[in-house]
């Protein structure tokens, strides 16, 4: 399947500083704040935004989410929807926005995700098969699912705990160059990661993202409207998506996920080889997710991510192929479903050349991945700076 994305451009971004707690602040306030940032960054008036993509369960709003958000924002969109792909929702929004623009459904789409964080979160209201056939055995929550994926990966390929911990340490090192990151000023090396408490083997505490409040917004628009932004336009060069399952027990493979075909399709559309990509903005809810993605992207053979990272000279902006320069979610914090969008926002900064002290030299292309549920919802984007 071929696609050209010549009519859609990313022209605006917004990001809130992650916070551990937001007592008394509601999600709608956060979403509106970050959306206003993105609109301003794009040089657009609120009335010019005629498309709206939001996540599911925004704050306390389970239904009529786009209408509720639009009304609060004072918008009257001609195209709106919920994108419900877990951590892949952000990247999933970008190519849906581009497709809507390409098809003439609307001209300018606001893609926004975020959440507040109160001290006590309510228990999940899920009444689906995972709730019936996983939870009763003591396996509720994402941690156990990713631990099962990691154990299977370790058993199959013999990778060491140090290999995986290198990813968390690399994320922390990158976070030291991002004042917005929740772990800015709090470095952790491989020994620190492995000394942190075992949460669910083989996952240590510091291999797991820190949940935070926050928000991320991106404006996708036409090349014409993108001229209103002061920044270099960022183009969508390719996209791929796949969903394979929901519960980890139903995964077709425990060591390779739907990102593999998604990335392959995105690269094919962009007519690029993964080794040519300038910046790897890889979804990192857990260390194992980055390991599996490096392998699924074809950067190395399965099981060889550890050696590949060493050959890559780590993950920093001076690495051969820099990874997650904003700190990733492991270093930045995971603002709920907006966590996946942090990878889009950082890619846009790198391609614009506005990443400050962590700017990659001559960054022209980026691979952005999103991942949801149990390595089961995948979106891959290839982004490029306009020439």
């Amino acid at each position: 399947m071929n696609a050209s994305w010549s009519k859609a451009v990313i022209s605006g971004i917004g990001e809130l500083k992650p916070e551990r707690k937001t007592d008394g602040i509601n999600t709608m306030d956060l979403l509106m704040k970050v959306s206003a940032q993105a609109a301003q960054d794009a040089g657009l008036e609120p009335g010019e935004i005629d498309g709206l993509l939001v996540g599911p369960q925004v704050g306390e709003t389970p239904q009529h989410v786009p209408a509720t958000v639009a009304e609060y924002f004072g918008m009257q969109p001609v195209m709106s929807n919920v994108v419900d792909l877990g951590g892949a929702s952000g990247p999933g929004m970008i190519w849906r926005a581009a497709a809507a623009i390409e098809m003439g459904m609307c001209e300018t789409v606001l893609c926004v995700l975020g959440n507040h964080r109160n001290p006590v979160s309510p228990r999940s209201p899920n009444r689906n098969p995972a709730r019936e056939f996983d939870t009763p055995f003591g396996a509720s929550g994402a941690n156990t699912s990713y631990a099962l994926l990691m154990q299977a990966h370790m058993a199959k390929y013999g990778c060491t705990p140090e290999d995986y911990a290198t990813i968390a340490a690399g994320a922390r090192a990158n976070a030291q160059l991002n004042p917005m990151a929740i772990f800015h000023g709090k470095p952790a090396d491989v020994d620190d990661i492995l000394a942190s408490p075992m949460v669910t083997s083989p996952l240590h505490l510091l291999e797991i993202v820190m949940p935070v409040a926050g928000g991320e917004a991106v404006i996708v628009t036409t090349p014409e409207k993108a001229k209103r932004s002061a920044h270099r336009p960022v183009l969508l060069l390719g996209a791929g998506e796949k969903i394979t399952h929901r519960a980890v027990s139903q995964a077709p493979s425990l060591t390779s996920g739907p990102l593999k075909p998604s990335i392959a399709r995105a690269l094919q559309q962009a007519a690029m080889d993964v080794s040519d990509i300038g910046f790897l903005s890889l979804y990192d809810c857990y260390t194992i997710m980055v390991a599996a993605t490096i392998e699924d992207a074809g950067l190395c053979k399965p099981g060889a991510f550890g050696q590949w990272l060493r050959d890559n000279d780590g993950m920093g902006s001076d690495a051969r192929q820099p990874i997650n320069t904003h700190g990733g979610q492991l270093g930045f914090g995971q603002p709920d479903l907006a966590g996946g969008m942090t990878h889009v926002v950082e890619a846009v900064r790198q391609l614009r050349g506005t990443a400050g002290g962590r700017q990659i030299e001559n960054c022209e292309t980026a691979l952005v991945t999103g991942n949801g549920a149990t390595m089961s919802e995948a979106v891959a984007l290839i982004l490029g700076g306009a020439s």
Partner: protein
Amino acid sequence: MTASLQELSVPGPTVTALTEPFWEAVKSGRLMIQHCDSCERSVFYPRAICPHCWVDALTWTEASGRGKLKSFSQVWKPGHPGWIPATPYLVGLVELSEGPTMLSHILTEGAQVAVGDALHFAPTQIGDRILPCFKMG
């Protein structure tokens, strides 16, 4: 393990009319899964029609109860606080000899476990319910 599984106050299965035969069978010590008479594949968890061929030809059949461990995790910090008294405990992915995989609670009885180990069905009371757990061997 510091507390017996029977003493736990943890979420039980959310049984539906469709899945009730599975849970009823577990209570009487049998592992029943669905078999598709059209495509001849086994199905777990229970469905209304076959997820492989979409034909309405599923029948309940007793599984062998044999399986192997595809992966496992020793849980120290459970997702649900009701499980804290039982930590650390083992959950695993059990590939049944009939084909499908189910997540279950693995009773190791102190043994070391490894991916690929053989397992057998061991219905066990957790809280006030009998659940389809597995033992080594």
